[in-house]
């Protein structure tokens, strides 16, 4: 189902109808030429590939985006307060808003960091919030918070430049919000929380799926792109190793690897992509990490359930953007509802991401549903259930035809001195009709997102 066409859509189609469609191929040529890749590992093989791109942008009116913006600012502010509280006084737990047991069983909760407060008390620096537009209420619904290492922003950034070159008419004739400022948001946030020194982007390396993005953002932010062994920790301070042997103090690290791998001395000793001693430097307040260690607890799909309560608790406000209706089998009454309605619900494994661990009740056999119920009963904390959100399709120009595909929207929110919402985002669409999984790691493609006004 498509959204009702408004004046902005009409203006777009009017210009699109006059464009040379042969030129669409130039996008792929451009992405190949500049190796704008999202790599995959398949059957143990490293495959370099460009992310499928669709030329029809998602169009969001400035007015509508303004509401999304306010809702996201509110949500990130609350989530940051939650994390800071959780790792210090834990009032929200003590007051029973979020059950203690629930927090402690979250795989992303790191009790070793209890009592530590990072630079400027900011933990949620760079955030990717996944939303869909619900066809029933015609409103935006939040599906997931990604407060660890959300990826994807470089793809719309890169493609927008190309779009302007290939089809300048749209940008001449329509009022489309510019988007180039996103790397400067991150740079400002890095500078704001910096503990003194240069900014670096820490990448797992050349064979990471998002290496292009690491490289691109580092360049756009004037930060050094480094691998772990290009940093060294001396006396709890982090230094960049220059080619000539000089060591330059690092004040802020935008790390593109998960907590488990960040420091082999503290976390996984097998990690070859972490910096030995980094956690010590971080705990000593000598380096800022973006995002903070321990944010995984807020990404837990079970904790997601409590975000509206957090907004009320910390800000005294009603949520501007709503969650999908969610049930926690952890609570007895919810378990009952889930078991009675399992065939129409979406069941998610709380610790998974990237579209993994998502089961659609309506696609499962009776036997599979029974097995799932057994698994839920054995470990109710591990699962959440959500009503299946019927979200709008987006028009896609695939195989030289317009086709409807499910599409979500990842919004990027950067927290530094203030909270900035990027006037763009990553619209991801499913390659097959009717598929609800749009994640890049599930083979989905992406579109540009135009925030427009008349």
């Amino acid at each position, binding site marked *: 189902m498509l959204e009702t066409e408004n004046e902005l859509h009409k203006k777009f189609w009017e210009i699109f109808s006059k464009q040379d469609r042969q030129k669409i191929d130039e996008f792929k040529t451009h992405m*190949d*030429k*500049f*190796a704008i890749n999202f790599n995959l590992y398949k059957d143990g093989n490293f495959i370099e590939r460009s992310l499928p791109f669709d030329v029809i942008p998602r169009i969001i009116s400035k007015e509508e985006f303004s509401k999304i913006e306010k809702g996201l600012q509110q949500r990130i502010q609350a989530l940051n307060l939650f994390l800071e509280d959780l790792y210090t006084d834990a009032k929200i737990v003590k007051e029973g808003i979020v059950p203690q047991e629930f927090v402690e069983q979250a795989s992303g909760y790191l009790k070793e960091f209890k009592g530590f407060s990072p630079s400027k008390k900011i933990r949620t620096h760079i955030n990717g919030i996944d939303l869909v537009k619900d066809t029933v209420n015609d409103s935006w619904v939040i599906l997931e918070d990604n407060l660890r290492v959300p990826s994807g922003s470089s793809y719309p950034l890169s493609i927008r430049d190309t779009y302007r070159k290939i089809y300048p008419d749209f940008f001449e004739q329509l009022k489309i919000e510019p988007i180039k400022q996103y790397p400067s948001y991150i740079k400002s946030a890095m500078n704001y929380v910096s503990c003194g020194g*240069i900014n670096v982007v820490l990448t797992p390396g*050349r064979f990471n799926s998002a*290496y292009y993005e690491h*490289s*691109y953002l*580092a*360049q756009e932010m004037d930060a*050094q*792109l*480094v*691998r772990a062994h*290009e940093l060294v920790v001396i006396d709890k301070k982090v230094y*960049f*190793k*220059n*080619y*000539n*042997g000089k060591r*330059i103090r690092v004040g802020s690290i935008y790390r593109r690897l998960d907590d488990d791998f960040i420091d082999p001395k503290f976390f996984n000793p097998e990690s070859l992509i972490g910096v030995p001693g980094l956690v010590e430097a971080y705990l000593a307040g000598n380096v800022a990490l973006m995002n903070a260690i321990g944010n995984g607890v807020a990404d837990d799909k079970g904790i997601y359930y409590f975000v509206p309560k957090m907004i009320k608790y910390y800000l005294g406000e009603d949520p501007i953007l709503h969650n999908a209706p969610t049930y926690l089998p952890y609570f007895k009454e919810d378990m009952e509802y889930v078991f009675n309605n399992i065939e129409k619900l979406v069941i998610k494994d709380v610790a998974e991401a990237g579209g993994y661990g998502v089961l659609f009740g309506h696609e499962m056999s009776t036997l599979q549903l029974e097995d799932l119920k057994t698994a839920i009963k054995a470990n109710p904390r591990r699962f959440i259930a959500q009503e299946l959100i019927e979200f709008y399709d987006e028009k896609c120009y695939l195989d030289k035809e317009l086709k409807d595909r499910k599409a979500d929207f990842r919004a990027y929110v950067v927290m530094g001195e203030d909270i900035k919402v990027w006037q763009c985002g990553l619209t991801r669409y499913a390659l097959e009709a009717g598929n609800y999984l749009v994640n890049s790691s599930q083979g989905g493609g992406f579109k540009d997102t135009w925030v427009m006004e008349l």
Partner: protein
Amino acid sequence: MEQLLTANVATNLYWLGRYIERIEATLGQIMIAYDQIIDVDKNAGITLYENFSTELEYTNAKDFLQKAIFGEHAANIAVLAGYARENAIICRNHINTQAFGEIIALNALFQKSSNSFVDIDYKLIDEAGSLISEMWGEISKTEYKRISDYFLRLGQLIEKADFNFRFDEEKETGIIIIDEINKILANLEADKETNVEQTQTQEMDYEVIINNIHKKIQDLIID
């Protein structure tokens, strides 16, 4: 403020310069030999590849092109282009975006040709030459003022010196190249010993000089 570079990036820039120059110079030599093989000297390709310590066998001029570019030997151009691409990806945020694109396109050109059933001809070399010229053109826009450019240029010059030596070209050209290498090394804040004495250049064994420079560059990059 001085430009910061990791040792890995500096090394990859250096090798990028080397591979691109090697591809360009080798293609130039291949075209000369190709022309000779047609109706002047059937063995011109064999003689050429002796300089690369490679025994190349071919049946005619077209077969020479195929074997020279895609043959199983160390001077395989498609493989070199792949190496250059890899170097470029690692240090992409220190090179001009357009130049980066030309390197990716250069590799794609050779990969596509190697998978094609159509025999390759001079057009492939022309096209590759154009991409390389465009790449150097884009890079030269910064007038080699950045440290990253120095490493790239250093790689290019070392390869030029190496070709000069292999093909026994004019010694004066070699002296000019080494002079330029010295200037770059000086700019990279190498100590005095890093410089290769120009006065010795004409008397010393050229191979020794080049090996000496290699050693100095290795010492310059501290991992």
